């Protein structure tokens, strides 16, 4: 055998899960609910999504080029961020807002923290909160997300007033209720989220923990009748399935992940019940949970085996 032999460090096989695959899977998981959004809210939703994704990708790669002087075109993490940022806007939002949201997410909440894997906050959630904070005066209905051509208020409005009769489960499930583009088709979100978990792209401990405390707290404060409307309206499930499960901002250990999920559920339920910020409250809960993640990593640590003498 005279040919050159390949040498590489062990192990010589690696699992099929790559960063690229995980990011692609997360992107495709968002697609069905966004398609529902486009069908429900009109073609304008599509423009918002496209602008968000393209701005985010270009911005991310440009920053990467300035930083490292070389570009890895196969880094799709920014596409997920852009997609998510745009999907959190209502279809009535102006197009520039989608672009602005992506730039805020990529530049401030990703690049300034040190790039992929270093950010503390989920960029999409953070940029959504910032947008809501900046533009409160501009257009109040913007973030409560009324559908185009109708004067129906967001389900959250009724929920906060204890009116559960107005919203039908059907409209929540199939996304005709007013809301952000990607977050209203509950059925798609559920299916895609469960698929992601089944294929081990995301971890199931976080959503389980989140749902448990969310249901518990809603039950305590609003009674059993409120559980389903609260759970299925607004962006809670979207955030639970796609945003808090983001590997970068969640803790590393299994127990840490469970506590993180429980915390997120609690924050989300409490903010929703008080309904100070409308739909934005869930994203503030995401950020609050994000802040806890490094702390949880400090507290919950695996204990290595075999460091002590045994007898």
């Amino acid at each position, binding site marked *: 055998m005279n040919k050159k*032999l390949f040498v590489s460090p*062990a192990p*010589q096989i690696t*699992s099929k899960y790559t960063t690229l695959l*995980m990011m692609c899977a997360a992107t495709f998981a968002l697609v069905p609910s966004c398609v529902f959004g486009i069908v429900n809210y009109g073609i304008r939703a599509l423009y918002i999504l496209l602008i968000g994704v393209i701005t985010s990708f270009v911005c991310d790669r440009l920053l990467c080029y300035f930083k490292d002087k070389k570009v890895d075109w196969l880094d799709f993490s920014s596409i997920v961020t852009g997609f998510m940022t745009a999907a959190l806007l209502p279809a009535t939002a102006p197009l520039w807002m989608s672009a602005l949201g992506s730039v805020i997410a990529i530049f401030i909440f990703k690049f300034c923290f040190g790039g992929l*894997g270093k950010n503390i906050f989920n960029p999409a959630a953070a940029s959504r909160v910032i947008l809501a904070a900046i533009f409160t005066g501009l257009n109040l209905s913007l973030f409560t997300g009324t559908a185009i051509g109708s004067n129906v208020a967001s389900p959250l409005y009724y929920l906060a007033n204890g009116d559960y009769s107005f919203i039908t489960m059907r409209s929540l499930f199939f996304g005709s209720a007013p809301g952000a583009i990607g977050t209203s088709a509950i059925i798609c979100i559920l299916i895609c989220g469960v698929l992601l978990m089944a294929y081990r792209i995301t971890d199931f401990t976080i959503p389980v923990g989140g749902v448990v405390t969310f249901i518990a707290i809603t039950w305590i404060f609003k009674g059993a009748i409120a559980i389903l409307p609260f759970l299925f309206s607004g962006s809670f499930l979207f955030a639970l399935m796609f945003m808090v499960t983001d590997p970068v901002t969640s803790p590393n250990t299994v127990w840490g992940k469970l506590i993180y999920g429980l915390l997120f559920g609690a924050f989300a339920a409490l903010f929703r019940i008080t309904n100070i910020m409308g739909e934005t409250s869930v994203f503030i809960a995401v950020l609050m949970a994000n802040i806890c993640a490094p702390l949880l990593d400090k507290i919950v640590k695996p204990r*290595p085996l075999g460091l002590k*003498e*045994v007898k």
Partner: protein
Amino acid sequence: MEIRGVRLKKYNFGKIAKDFFVLRDAEIYSVPLTAGDCEQSIRVVNVGDSVKEGALIAKPNGKYGDFVYSPCCGKVVGVVKKLNINGSLCEHVVIQKDNKQETDYLPILSEDELGSEVLLKRLYESGIMDNFPPYESAYKKYLLKNKINDLVINCTETDPYDHATTALMVTYLSEVFDGALHFQKLCGAAKLTFVFTYKQHRVVKMFKAYLKKRGLKKKVKIKLFPNIYPLAYSRLLAYYLTGKMVKELGRTAQIGMIVESAVNCYDFYQAVNKGKPSIERAITVAGNNCIRKANYFIKNGTPVSHILEVVGFKEDGVDNMLIYGGIMSGVAQESDNVSVSLTANSLLLCESDEFSIEKERVCINCGKCVEKCPVRIHVKDVDDAFELRDYVKAKELGAEACLNCGVCSYVCPAKRFLTQKVQFMKNMAQNKIGKNPDSSDYVLVDGEDFGASKKYDKILDIDKGFKDAIEREVSPVAEQIIASIKQEKLNKTTKDGGNKDE
């Protein structure tokens, strides 16, 4: 007990014949004098000597070393200093085979003289090496003064290519079982447990039928594990069985348990009942680039190039990989100019589509490595500590517990070289780095007498670990046995005139 690790069932590359073949003899054998992580044995033959098959060619160096025997009948034509297959520099005795078939085995032990002492002697002088980490001489496990309650025979195969154990259990079941009984007699364990994975249910069925036939069903326990890599590590297996994890560099005998492999049982049977010292091993030769994938009995010191010639390889013009050991923790070889040693399990010749070469990307903080590490190291934090070369932090995080199993690198989506980094930090924490001599090129020293000159005194110092951790716990009786058998053996060789160094 939670078993962590990865399931590798998807990687079942091709079918490997379950039978055994004896590899055609090579012309030249170059026998490495360091097999595992031990000190190099001292050569007792010189260039020009004739040796028979099974004749002693090296004696132990220091207190705990190994005897090395000639794999064939022939003439010593050279002594070469080169890299062995594990990548450490050591002397190789080059033996040219002749056409004679003479053997010089150890005396056969009869059934009624088999006592604990006799068996320990035999295990020591037969030079059997463990084929699982920490690749050392098999007898060392029996030297501690702790009372042994459990003898565990590890028959699991979690490395996807490794089929030698199953094949051995199918083909030579009674030999393996008798070897296990010898081991039980040696350590005086009350319980004998065989460990399998669920994947090997056919072998288990066969084994149960065999036990029933021999009327030993009550005496032997069978334990099944899920097919999760890694299970070959004796400390880890002991942890799964007892809930106690022995300290790094410790031995499972400290908690009253001894773990042996099925391959060792077979070899020990050969040593006791046939008098055959450890000169060959059951090895799986596999990989997609390999034509006759099978299990072979391969002699110590067989050149890999000879093996490749016999089993055949399709050279498709692709760059291939030659891996010694399993695909998860094996060593990729730079060339086929190496020879097999006694610690082998498998030799893989892989095509380019079988192994993955990925670019290292930034960590996305997913926690998969932390979740899967069998000894629960926070691998991600050790990786961060590596970037900062923060050895103190790595020590605090417990990098020393690492088994070098490769699971973390396997599961990492960013394909970071975590295993190597943790290993580096571990070595730094243990002050081990820098003791291997620089071994970048081969030195041919044909004819020069290395036993006499002190030039290569500071060879590998890894055996120190055993001394530090265990020496104070070695039972004095065992030590005496070791000392006496060594003396006996050497007296014999001097009488035979085979030893010119003494």
